[in-house]
C-alpha cells in the first residue's frame, strides 16, 4: 500500500507519510514522537519550512518538543504541500494515552487542512477511539483472502527446514484445509 501510494505521488500531486505503532517501543512512541516521525518525512519532501527552521534555532536545548509545538509545525508543513496522505499502522499497539493525543492532534490537523487524508489499521476495539475523534471515519473490515493465505502457506512450506516430515498428501491437505478454515472465521 505504501509503495502503491508513493507510486502515485508524482502523477496525482500528493504527499505520503506513514508510521508503524509498536508495543515494544512505548517509551519512544509518545504522541509527540509519532507526529514528529510524520513531520520528519514531510519536511524531507521539499525544503524545510522557514517557520520550522526558526523554531529549531530558538529551541531550548534541554527541553524536548511539546505536543502543541509539534501540531503547529505539522500544520505549517501540510499547508505548504499537496494533499497529504497519512497512514498509521497498528493503532491498537499504541498506549491509550498516546492514542488519544494522536487522534486529537490529527483531528485538529484535518480540520485545518481538510484535504488531508488519514488511514489507520488496527484491531476492532480501537475503532471506537477513531470514531470518537472522526465520526465520519469509514470502517473497512479486512482479513486475508484465501488466495493470500495460499501464497503465504506455499512460501512457508518451501522454506520448511524439516522437509522430511512432509509428503505430498500432507502438503495437499494443508493447502486445502487451512485457507478454507481461516476464511470462514
Amino acid at each position: 500500500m505504501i509503495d502503491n501510494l508513493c507510486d502515485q505521488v508524482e502523477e496525482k500531486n500528493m504527499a505520503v507519510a506513514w508510521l508503524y505503532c509498536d508495543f515494544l517501543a512505548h517509551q519512544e512512541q509518545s504522541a509527540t514522537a509519532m507526529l514528529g516521525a510524520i513531520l520528519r518525512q514531510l519536511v524531507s519532501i521539499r525544503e524545510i519550512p522557514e517557520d520550522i527552521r526558526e523554531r529549531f534555532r530558538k529551541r531550548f536545548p534541554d527541553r524536548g518538543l511539546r505536543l502543541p509545538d509539534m501540531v503547529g509545525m505539522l500544520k505549517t508543513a501540510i499547508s505548504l504541500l499537496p494533499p497529504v496522505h497519512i497512514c498509521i499502522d497498528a493503532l491498537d499497539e499504541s498506549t491509550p494515552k498516546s492514542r488519544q493525543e494522536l487522534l486529537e492532534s490529527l483531528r485538529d490537523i484535518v480540520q485545518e487542512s481538510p484535504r488531508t487524508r488519514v488511514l489507520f489499521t488496527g484491531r476492532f476495539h480501537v475503532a471506537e477511539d477513531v470514531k470518537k475523534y472522526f465520526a465520519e471515519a469509514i470502517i473497512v473490515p479486512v482479513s486475508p483472502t484465501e488466495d493470500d493465505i495460499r501464497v503465504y502457506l506455499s512460501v512457508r512450506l518451501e522454506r520448511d527446514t524439516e522437509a522430511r516430515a512432509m509428503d505430498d498428501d500432507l502438503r495437499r491437505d494443508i493447502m486445502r484445509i487451512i485457507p478454507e478454515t481461516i476464511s470462514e472465521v
Partner: protein
Amino acid sequence: MAQISSQYLTITGNTGCFNNFINVNTAISDEDNQIREWLSPLKPHQRHQDVRAERLDGVGDWFLETSEFRKWSKGEDGSLERVLFCSGGPGVGKTFLW
C-alpha cells in the same frame, strides 16, 4: 545571499568552528539533518524496508482495488473518504496490507 551568509555564521558560531573553507551547502544540510533528528528519533522508513522485505508478492493487493481505498487515495475535495479505519481481529496481520 545575505540569508545564506547568516545561516553560515549561525552554524559555524554554534559549533565554535570558524574555518573559512567550510562549504556553505554542507553547513546548511547539516542543520537540515539536525532538524530532522530534533523532530523525531523514530525512523519509519527503516521499518518499512523490513515490512517490504517480509511481504509476499500479491498478498493484500485486492485491498488497493477496493472502492474505499481508491476514493481515499484519490482525495477528491468533499469526498467522504477522508478517514479510513481498516480493522481486523487479532492475528490477521493487518500489516500485510502495507
